[in-house]
């Protein structure tokens, strides 16, 4: 692979983009060659998503230029980028919810007869072909808002791939996919690159990056820290460049787990959602829920929290049976739930940190029925300090925080409620390595203080790092509960698949 100008498919030079209070992209160069898979990695808030948004015309750079095949281009909106031949799969799945799969795949490129009449039947057939090519089985006539997350992801990917664009951008495409789907996606991507398509690939899963990418660019705090070819760099160095310091590989402390059962559930089930759940978590214990997408992790947590009312079974706190029919009951019993989708279920994005932390817990900061601003501020400051939330001020809108810090705000809210049991659903999803570690440390702290934690995750590494015991889930049932010291990785995976 010769590094000549002529080979350059896409070239970005001296790109600068800032938002109020932060420089998101600071004088960054990036280039993409024909037939190259170019990885882009960095911690959350490093600027990768912003950079690719500029590539696609979603945002406009303040300084710097973009060249496609050597020609300067000026993207005012995605329409311009599309016409130049760029496809984009954004990080958060963006589909038209009331249209079906086929209609979404061909959105704005519909087959029309006589320039007017949309041929839906034809589109459905073509969509099926595209999905087959990706080895994915989804009903093309299904309305997209009724699909599960991984299927939605695949539809977005199918949309991009079927455009046959010379340049493709994938932003965290594997976040919601299962192993099988990932394998097929990768083979498709590799095939595309072999046919000359240039691909920008963003992921926080380093194994994927190392496996796929011909070159990798690392960003940190809006700056480019380096571009390396395959084989030139190893995991440790990458992580160093990403977070600027050496990561301590933390071994699990042998914490004395208290024997006192905090939360017990017996025969808990919801028809069609989860059957016959039995488990116990002791005081200060971290219990993992491990399973693939669709195994029922979220459903189980929802049952415990009362977000979904259980049809049968009972829940006991401190050996006393309690009735949990709604989240209000759960909160009264000191149970907290950090949901999977923090942006839509956990936070009010347009409110600031202070308000999000005190949300629903106003009594604590009220004086004479009015919300006292000083109290609210002090509460927030405490948590910002204790949880090391990175922000310019406690009045910062939560929307502007990075993923990891947003998650900390959610945790702060629950800690503010004095919970004894904390339910976590994929708490580090979409969060960079450094922030992940901080959260893991936080969980350790909480367990030391006696709080019981149930941690649902699909990455085995996370379960192993954090948990004392693990409940393995498959097909909406608990398969086995066992101490992590007493079971091998292979066994866990085989029970879960």
């Amino acid at each position, binding site marked *: 692979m010769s590094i000549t100008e002529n080979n350059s498919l896409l070239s970005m030079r001296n790109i600068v983009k800032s938002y109020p209070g932060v420089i998101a992209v600071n004088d960054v160069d990036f280039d993409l060659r024909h037939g190259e898979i170019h990885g882009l990695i960095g911690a959350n808030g490093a600027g990768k998503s912003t950079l690719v948004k500029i590539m696609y015309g979603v945002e406009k750079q303040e300084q710097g230029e973009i060249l496609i095949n050597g020609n300067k281009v000026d993207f005012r909106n995605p329409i311009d980028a599309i016409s130049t031949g760029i496809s984009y799969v954004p990080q958060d799945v*963006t589909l*038209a919810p*009331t249209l079906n799969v086929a209609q979404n795949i061909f959105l704005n490129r519909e087959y029309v007869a006589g320039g007017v009449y949309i041929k839906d039947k034809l589109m459905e057939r073509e969509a099926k072909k595209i999905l087959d090519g990706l080895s994915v089985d989804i009903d093309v006539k299904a309305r997209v808002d009724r699909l599960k997350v991984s299927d939605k992801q695949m539809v977005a990917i199918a949309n991009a791939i079927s455009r046959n664009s010379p340049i493709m951008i994938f932003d965290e495409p594997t976040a919601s996919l299962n192993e099988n789907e990932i394998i097929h996606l990768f083979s498709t991507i590799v095939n595309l690159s072999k046919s000359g398509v240039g691909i920008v690939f963003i992921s926080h899963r380093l194994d994927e990056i190392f496996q796929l990418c011909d070159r990798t660019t690392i960003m940190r705090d809006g700056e480019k820290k380096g571009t390396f070819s395959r084989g030139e760099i190893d995991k440790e160095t990458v992580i160093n460049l990403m977070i600027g310091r050496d990561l301590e590989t933390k071994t699990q402390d042998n914490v004395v787990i208290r024997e006192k059962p905090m939360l017990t559930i017996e025969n808990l089930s919801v028809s069609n959602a989860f059957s016959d759940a039995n488990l116990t978590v002791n005081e200060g214990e971290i219990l993992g829920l491990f399973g693939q997408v669709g195994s029922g992790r979220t459903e189980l947590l929802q049952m415990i929290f009362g977000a979904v009312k259980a049809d049968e079974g009972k829940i006991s706190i401190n050996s006393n049976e309690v009735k949990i029919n709604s989240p209000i009951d759960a909160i009264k019993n000191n149970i907290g739930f950090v949901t999977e989708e923090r942006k839509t279920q956990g936070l009010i994005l347009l409110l600031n940190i202070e308000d999000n932390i005190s949300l629903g817990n106003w009594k604590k900061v009220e004086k004479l029925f009015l919300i006292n601003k000083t109290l609210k501020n002090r509460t927030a400051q405490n948590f910002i300090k204790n949880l090391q939330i990175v922000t310019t001020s406690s009045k910062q809108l939560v929307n502007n925080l990075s993923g990891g810090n947003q998650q900390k705000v959610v945790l702060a809210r629950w800690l503010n409620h004095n919970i004894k049991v904390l339910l976590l659903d994929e708490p580090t999803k979409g969060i960079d390595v450094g922030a992940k570690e901080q959260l893991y440390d936080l969980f350790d702290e909480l367990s030391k203080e006696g709080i019981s934690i149930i941690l649902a995750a699909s990455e085995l590494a996370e379960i192993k790092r954090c948990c004392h015991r693990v409940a393995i889930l498959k097909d909406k049932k608990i398969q086995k509960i066992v101490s992590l010291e007493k079971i091998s990785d292979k066994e866990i995976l085989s029970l879960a698949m």
Partner: protein
Amino acid sequence: MTEKTKTINITGMKIGTFFKEKGLIAAFILMCALFSFLSPVFLSVSNFLNIALQSAALIIMGIGMSLTIASGGIDLSVGAVIALTGIIMGLMLTAGFNLVVSILVGLLCGVLVGAINGFIISKFKVTPFIATLATYTMLRAIALIISDGRPIYGFPVDFRFLGSGKLFFNLPTAFFIALACIIIFYFVIEHTRIGRNALAIGGNKEAARLSGINLVINTITFYALAALLYSIAGIIYTARLNAAEPIAAMGVELEVIAATVLGGTRMEGGYTKISGTVTGALVLAVLRNGLTLLGVQSYYQQLTIGVVIVLAVLANQIRKK
């Protein structure tokens, strides 16, 4: 369980499912049956002609409103466009222009107003509610100003033809105009990119944007088409009253929105059914007609209609689950 109970259960379930799926249409049929039972004149030809006339304008306006709501917005300028179209047509006619030209100019003004609505909404990012409310206020004022507050008479007798004049099969012209609008816009919304884009933008504006759909041009199109429909309704209004009143169609917006919502269109955008809107408009028209035939006081009529709307919306919610 005895055989008899089983049959009753199954029949009950069948009826229940029928109502669940065909909800509004079933309710409509039920209502008509009830009225024909209670009033000897409900099923008469004369009455059906009434209903056809009275619902024509509402159906046409409903279609326009459905398009704007489906695209994630709303349009409060309905009545004002109707009044203005009428006044403009009236002014042109009294100034000596021929009928066809006057009508075309009236329609053109409607389209222009709609385009302005769409432009303000998409280019300046003003919420549709506020933008169309502002347009409504200004148009009402303009109608009053250019007409000097007085109705405009002097429409040629032939103009009546566009309203209650009979076309084919002894049915009024207004009926056929409404029919044409239904057919054309069913086609547009279900099978053309205009409708498709509306559903996409209404469902998820960002998704539409990322797919390369031009939000500005499309939004302008939606509101312009909607206003065109309101103008057409304005022609029917004016023909029926044989005069252009600057105060025509006051407060009609709420009834149009009610018809649209009754028909299943979601207020949050992304979904609409033309057949639903048409049925919704018919339900409202028949309800009014039937209650008047039965001598029910107009205020109780309003109460009944309000209750019907609430029930219909609740039914839609349940069906959603």
